[in-house]
């Protein structure tokens, strides 16, 4: 009994101080503006675009997860970012502006985040909010999140209704699809515009050959390497 107490009391104290610390931590807003484009031109649903390969292309779904935002990782690895996930839908304006809260620190020089959802979350069962499987970004027959969905049509696709469908995901060690991005930010900067250029993706893909990837594996992993290049900051 005595031995037990020795363990318990410091634990209580520790929890108490932690509560104090967290309640006093000051946060500030940091805005992420997402700007989906095709070759610099604003991306609109069902408009026509032409890729470098000469394919005419229309998009009807562009969705992806940005997760695990961090600032200046090296110096304060303990920092707690509030609101650090967003499921972006290029055609749903609400999702194009995300406000994170970071600890007050105007001197950060990098922002880092992941394109996709971690393996840990992909093995955690039914989650809520942006991670709710009802968002259509979760695979039914092989558990795990779909990190990126890009769907549309092009006369170049030899498929039914000329559709192309890219569902990029999978977290197995041999074929990971999560990609980490980081960008420099300036002192006192409290927002970034994240440009997502779909042309970068479609310029790399031969739609006659490759028009649907909907399972985890090598192909998905390669597509993730291409997809990550769509992102840049302005």
């Amino acid at each position, binding site marked *: 009994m005595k031995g037990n107490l020795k363990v318990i009391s410091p634990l209580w104290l520790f929890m108490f101080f932690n509560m104090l610390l967290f309640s006093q931590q000051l946060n500030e807003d940091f805005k992420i503006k997402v700007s989906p484009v095709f070759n610099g031109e604003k991306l609109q649903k069902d408009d026509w675009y032409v890729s470098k390969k000469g394919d005419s292309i229309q998009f009807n779904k562009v969705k992806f997860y940005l997760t695990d935002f961090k600032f200046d990782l090296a110096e304060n690895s303990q920092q707690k970012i509030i609101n650090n996930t967003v499921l972006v839908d290029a055609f749903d304006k609400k999702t194009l502006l995300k406000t994170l809260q970071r600890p007050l620190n105007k001197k950060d020089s990098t922002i880092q985040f992941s394109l996709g959802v971690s393996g840990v979350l992909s093995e955690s069962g039914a989650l809520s909010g942006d991670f709710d499987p009802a968002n259509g970004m979760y695979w039914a027959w092989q558990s795990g999140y779909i990190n990126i969905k890009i769907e549309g049509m092009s006369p170049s696709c030899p498929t039914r209704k000329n559709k192309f469908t890219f569902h990029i995901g999978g977290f197995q060690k041999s074929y990971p699809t999560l990609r980490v991005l980081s960008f420099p930010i300036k002192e006192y900067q409290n927002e970034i515009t994240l440009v997502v250029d779909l042309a970068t993706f479609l310029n790399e893909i031969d739609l006659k050959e490759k028009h649907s990837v909907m399972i985890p594996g*090598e192909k998905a992993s390669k597509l993730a390497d291409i997809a990550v290049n769509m992102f840049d900051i302005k």
Partner: protein
Amino acid sequence: MKKAVCFIGGILLLSFIGLKVKKNIFTYPEYWPKPVYDIIKNPVTEEGFQLGRALFYDPILSKDNTISCASCHLQASGFTHIDHDLSHGIEGKIGTRNSLAIMNSAWSDSFMWDGGINHLEVQALAPLTSDVEMAETLENVVRKLDTIPFYKKMFYKAFQDSTITGQRVLLGFTQFTLMLNTYNSKYDKYIRKEVGGEFTAQEKNGLKLFRNNCASCHTEPLFATNKFKNNGLAVDTTLNDYGRMKITQNPKDSLRFKVPTLRNIQFTKPYMHDGRFETLQEVITHYTNGIQQSETLSEELKDPILFTHREKVDLLVFLRTLTDKEFLFDKRFSFPKALITQK
């Protein structure tokens, strides 16, 4: 004095938790291993269980309102589909696999014959969205349920909030599935030395044969293991199902399938992932005479299993002791009348 501090601390803590957590109704024999599913984090409540039960039996969850989970998972057959080798779904479409029995799911770390589902909570997504099963989307199921006052009430009782979300629908199914536990067969009573558990000499010999030849994969007390094995079935060339390899894309997993539980095996026919065997006699004959050699065949089955005719019978008699009538006829798991009277 110190005792008192401890006590008060404990009471405070409990009252904090008590506000949120209702009484857990999930139980299992204390000599069983700990479940894989985190029951402490997600306890099963009576309200959650009843919600899940309604969802499980309600055909509204399929696209044309004709198929419920229970269409393929019947209680009296250990919650599997009988008399069909491959399960039937919406518009009579036929799937590619024999349905699995749902029993003691809290002890499984993955689901489906190929283990493609990594968590019980997301299991229901597969049948709900499969074209050959219920052909719905979770988003649409949420929308449908949201228009039904009966369900608004059920969700409120289960989650103290009537907002229906995809997560909560899935958790509802989970609560019901978690309760489908069987541990009152004659075999269990034999192990616990209870009345009704007296084994005959034949059953005892069957158990011995089982332990020597089968238990490395169908391990007691669950009669399953969380592993994928090739048990020597020849490939059905009309289906070309290579099992686990589809998920891992690793040739070493070719022809490996989940080791299913053998509890209530007398009633879960037909047998194997494609339902190729109608009787347990055929299954036993497969293990003695039908093993197909291949690169991924399990070590355990590389040496032939030799049974005399009498031994085969003894093994069969033992397998029947795994039948748990209390489970198969438990009224708590059957069609909920509230679905008709209150909806």
